[in-house]
């Protein structure tokens, strides 16, 4: 069995990759994917902790988080569709209506 510490490490790596992607990429879909990556990193962290402590609570949280992630993706994609309808683009730099 893999040591939960390795899983935890991988989770951290995935999270940082997701964060960096979310910071740097312009395409909204990619940013969304990065956010999903971070979420899954968190899930992995939960799983690792659950194994480490021998407690099922972490697994339960993971399942919840996956459900939330799914709905979040649905909403995110809907927002992008609406955004495309308004701005004919899903590049984040083109959309800054909240500025000032």
């Amino acid at each position, binding site marked *: 069995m893999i040591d939960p510490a390795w899983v935890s490490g991988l989770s951290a790596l995935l999270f940082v990759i997701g*964060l960096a992607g*979310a*910071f*740097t990429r312009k395409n*909204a879909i990619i*940013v969304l994917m990065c956010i999903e990556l971070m979420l899954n990193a968190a899930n992995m962290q939960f799983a690792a902790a659950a194994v480490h402590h021998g407690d099922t609570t972490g697994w339960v949280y993971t399942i919840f988080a996956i459900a939330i992630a799914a709905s979040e993706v649905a909403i995110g994609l809907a927002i992008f569709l609406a955004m495309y309808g308004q701005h004919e683009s899903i590049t*984040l*730099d083109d*959309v*800054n*209506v*909240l*500025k*000032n």
Partner: protein
Amino acid sequence: MAGTGSSELIHSTAAQYAPYIVLLPMLAFPIILLLGKMMNGDKMWKETLKEGGLIALPVMGASLLLSLWLITDFIGAFGGVEKLSDWTWFTSSMWNSGVVTTEISFGFGIHIDHITVMLLFIASFLCLLINTFAVGYMNTDPINDNRNHRFYAEFVLFCSGMLGMVLADSFLWLFIFWELMGLCSYLLIGFYYERPSAAYAAKKAFLTTRVGDVFLMVGLAMLWDLFGSLDYAVVFSEYNIDKVAASNPGTLAWALGLMFIGAVGKSAQFPLHVWLPDAMEGPTPVSALIHAATMVNAGLYLVARMFPFFGAESMHGELADLAFIIAAIGGTTAVMAAAIAFVQHDLKKVLAYSTMSQLAYIFTGLGAALYLANTLDWHHDDTAHAIVIVAFGAALFHLFNHAMAKGMLFMASGAVIHEVHHAHHHLHPHDDHHHDEDPEELLMLANYLADTGQSVFGFFNSIDLDQSGEVDTYEFQTALKKADIADLPPWDMQRLMKAVDMDGNGRINVPELELTLGRVHLASLAGDDHHDHHDEFDAQSMENMGGLASKMPLTATAMLVGSLSIMGFPLIGGFWSKEGIIANTWRVALEDPRFFYPALCVLLGAGMTGFYMSRMWLKTFAGSPKTEVAAHVHPTNTWIKIPLFVLTFFSLGGILFAGMGFTHWAPDIEYGLMSQKNLFEGILYEMEHAFANHDVFFLILSYVALFIGAIVGPGIALSLYGGALDEGESAKPWFAPVLALNTVVKGRYNWDNSSFAQSGFATALTNRLYFDHYYDMAMLKIVAAFSFKAAQADADVIDGTVKTIERTSQQLSTTLRSLTTGSARDYILMAAVGTLALFALIWGVVA
């Protein structure tokens, strides 16, 4: 043995029906109002029921019959407090650490004693007569058409207020009915509410009496605090008074003093007298009602009610100062009001000031009687007892005489005004059709359009903000503001809208505006000859009367008898009581030198009364007609004649009432009505006391008072006013001596009083000694200044706080707004940084 509390329990079936005396008129109020609303304009309602007048009449008649029944049952039995029938309103408990300590129940009960009996008769009898008069007065004037039901409804409510106040068995209910009367007086004085002066007078009467009522309420609260109840049965019980007198008599004096201020307001005494003359704005029956039957008597009733406190043995001497204040206020008002009455030209205003002055007499008399009751040892000394009883009785008897005479005088003056008014309409019918004046703002608008060269259509389009094709009130208001014509509040805009809006849909369209402006423009060109008729004929001014004795014989007789009664002319009505008041005030003055002030005032006032009452009669009925209108006056109608006829006999019969022991009208069985002597003995006794007193001081005093009141005062008036009737005019034989005397005296002296009339004092009197002026000024200074400060505080503190919060948050948000880039990645970055910061924070705390 003389003494109080010779209470005799009476079982009377009349007492069971006593609540109906109050309830009948009270129930008639909604009935008349609703029927009037439903059947307004209906022929049957107008002709047969006189718009409610003939519903009110039997109701008041029933009240009078029930009152008389009650009075006859109780007439021989003065004394104890009778709680006859009781109806519990609600019960309340006082709690002290979870335990009920006291149970108090508030209920309505009937209380009958000598004061109740007196006022009950005055109120129910005069209300019925005034109702009869009102049918002849209100229903024959077209100005009242289709709204008389409002008059009669408020009238019966007013009467029920007075009757209820008199019958109530506690100060609480006295106060409730007192306020009911206040409300009705407001409604009735403002009956012609479309006249600004009437609306103002109503407001003034309401607010001025309210000032007194606040004090009354505080006084009642103090009384409650002392006795734990406001029921007469509790507060007037000797045991309770003794207890209070032992602990804090000073507080009781203050409570009674504050209650007296309430009476001052209600009875229009100095310094709260300003509302009474203005109350003449109401229709004449209302004046008669307020001045004779109800309102002003309420204050006197309240003071008379306080007798048991003053009379209690344990309060001996404690309330003498308050008694003096009552007498002093009375004395001051008596002279002041009489002086103002000298220069009034308005017939009703003379009577109004006369009321004020005569009520002041009653207050002085009550003050003297209460002083005597408070200082003499009348519980054990028979002579002192008789003195107290007679002093108190004289004041109450004057209340009776004044009510009868003043009710008659007001109704007679109403008859005169009514007929002069009709004669005027007969002679100048065109004055009847006052064209509604167009608002001047419309003329200004027409001129504005002409000046700026705009077409009505163009202007209309520019003000029709929502382009609906019609202009509503708001748009019109904005347009007028923009054109710099007027910035009117919404209620004034209604007036303009009404003038323009022809179809009455609440909005203006182009043709309406065009037609109206055209009409206004034309009217302004045709203009100026319309202004000739603007000086209105005043049907109430005595300057427009004169010589009416031959044209309205019954009215003139009634006026003559009423005036003589008020003047205290020997043997007629008020003579018996006025002599008593003057004598008793002087009696007190001999004991307490402070009382010389009210004593001199009432003596002087007697002469002044003689002058202004004679002046009024002579100016109205003697001499030759001063205007064409006065020459064409006709006798009045039967409805008006009935009460005049009845009351004339009541005033003429003063000697009978005096003989029946009305001057001994006091809480003791031995001095009750008809209980001391038979009628003949009583009359002899009164005659002897009035004209041949054994006490030299009072003998001289009564002749001095007689000389001043019946010879000097009227004599001066006879030499100044009136004169013989015109050639060919015949008057009733009983006017002949008056008119002959008038002619002789006027011919011999024929004084010229123009120098006095132009003096500063006369001007001051005409301006009512500037009381209204200074009150208005004080109001402006105090109330307006306070309002201004309050408005400032509102703007600076309350609005200021809100605005500061708003401004600060605005500034803050402007600063913060510059941080937002609108870029999603920046938000993510910030979220991440924020999370990290939180994490670090938690880490720092935990570690």
